[in-house]
């Protein structure tokens, strides 16, 4: 591994600001999506999860398991008291696709300090990955700077959305009957997009 500094002092401040602005503007659609989806997941957890201190758990889940689908799927598992093995299998099934995301980032993230790499891998969710891939910055240090801001911003949106959703679900009598359809709808949307791509290529 090359000797890469974790700091970005060698990039000019105006360029850093420009990269941050770019990351922020590109992440705005994700802001809309993550805050609303996170809100729904948070409401679902506090209404159907049956766990005490739901907002706290929503914060923990959204900050560790940064995965929209899993945030929904973990709720019935918690409510029914599923065994840890079945939770592991469920996670494996739902998040299997993440194993393929890293492959396309192997080359670009080859020489990144360990702690930064750990954070990038930790928060490698669908939309965040899509923004990483869409970024056209050639310089590897600037690309790393962009990716770090992108991951930090999007993860923050997700945590914000889920926690506020759980707070709202715990505090307000929201109409919750049937809200569990949101997860099924998410699966249906993912599947429809996959089929679209499949038939376009075939």
């Amino acid at each position, binding site marked *: 591994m090359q000797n890469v500094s974790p700091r970005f002092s060698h990039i000019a401040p105006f360029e850093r600001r420009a990269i941050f602005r770019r990351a922020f503007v590109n992440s705005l659609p994700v802001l*809309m999506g993550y805050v609303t989806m996170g809100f729904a997941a948070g409401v679902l957890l506090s209404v159907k999860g049956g*766990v005490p*201190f739901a907002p706290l*758990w929503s914060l*923990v*889940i959204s900050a*560790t*398991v*940064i*995965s929209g689908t*899993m945030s929904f*799927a*973990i709720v*019935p*598992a*918690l409510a*029914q*008291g599923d065994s*840890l093995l079945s*939770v*592991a299998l469920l*996670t*494996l*099934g*739902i*998040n*299997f*696709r*993440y*194993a*393929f*995301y*890293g*492959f*396309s980032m*192997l*080359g670009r*993230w*080859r020489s990144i300090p360990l702690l930064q790499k750990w954070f990038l*891998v*930790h928060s*490698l969710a669908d939309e965040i990955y899509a923004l990483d891939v869409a970024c056209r910055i050639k310089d590897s240090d600037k690309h790393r700077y962009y990716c770090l801001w992108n991951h930090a911003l999007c993860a923050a949106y997700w945590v914000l959305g889920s926690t506020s959703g759980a707070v709202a679900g715990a505090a307000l009598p929201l*109409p919750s*009957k*049937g*809200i*569990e*359809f949101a*997860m*099924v*709808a*998410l*699966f*249906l*949307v*993912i*599947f*429809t*997009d*996959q089929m679209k791509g499949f038939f376009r290529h075939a």
Partner: protein
Amino acid sequence: MLEKAVYTAAVVAVAWAVTFGLRSLPFLLFAGRSRDLPPSVERFGAFVSPVIIAGLIVYSYSALEWRTAWPYLAGALTVALQLWKGNPLASIIAGTALYMSLLGFCGCATSTVAYEQDIAHPLLHVTRNGMKFMDEYVTPEEAVRRLENGKVPKDVTIYVQVDEDFDDQRALWVFKNNYLSRAGYTRSAWVHRRRAESGSADKVDRNLNERKIPFEGRTIRQEPGKRIVHTHPSANP
């Protein structure tokens, strides 16, 4: 409370560990190498993930009111919007809103009753003439279906009142294991009560004690107030 917190923490830890493991898999596999993904792995990934998602869709429908048409209508709207506009958020919100309003407005098709029960007020009652759900004779399948439709949670104990003169232990065992447990009601308890205390049962079969009970080819006359317990034919020489 503490137990639940420990369990929740364990579930979150497992989910995070598996997710992080999957995300870091390529970096561990190809550490220090610069070559790209083999095309066979890429094809496998493209094939396997829609299959997994399709399985998840079928599985998650079982948590909805899948006996009614509503989840399928809402699902059709979600897929149609996604095909037409391609905006995931709009499709999800529209589908969920349709499902929630269908459940709310057309609740008559599904059950909107929520039954409460405890040891003093069991919903189920086993008499010699059959099983009753709230003073109405039903089949065991129907009884379990009504529990589920009545939103009786699966983690509470289901109390079943058993008449004193009901001595078919095997039938109780079958009901507990083949009907209640299989539907997810793993905790159940028999409530034995004297006939005089259970008001509803007397109305239906008032002269039960005078009735002849066929047993092992013989006819035994049951005397009032005396309970006959036959556990196994070998116990009755």
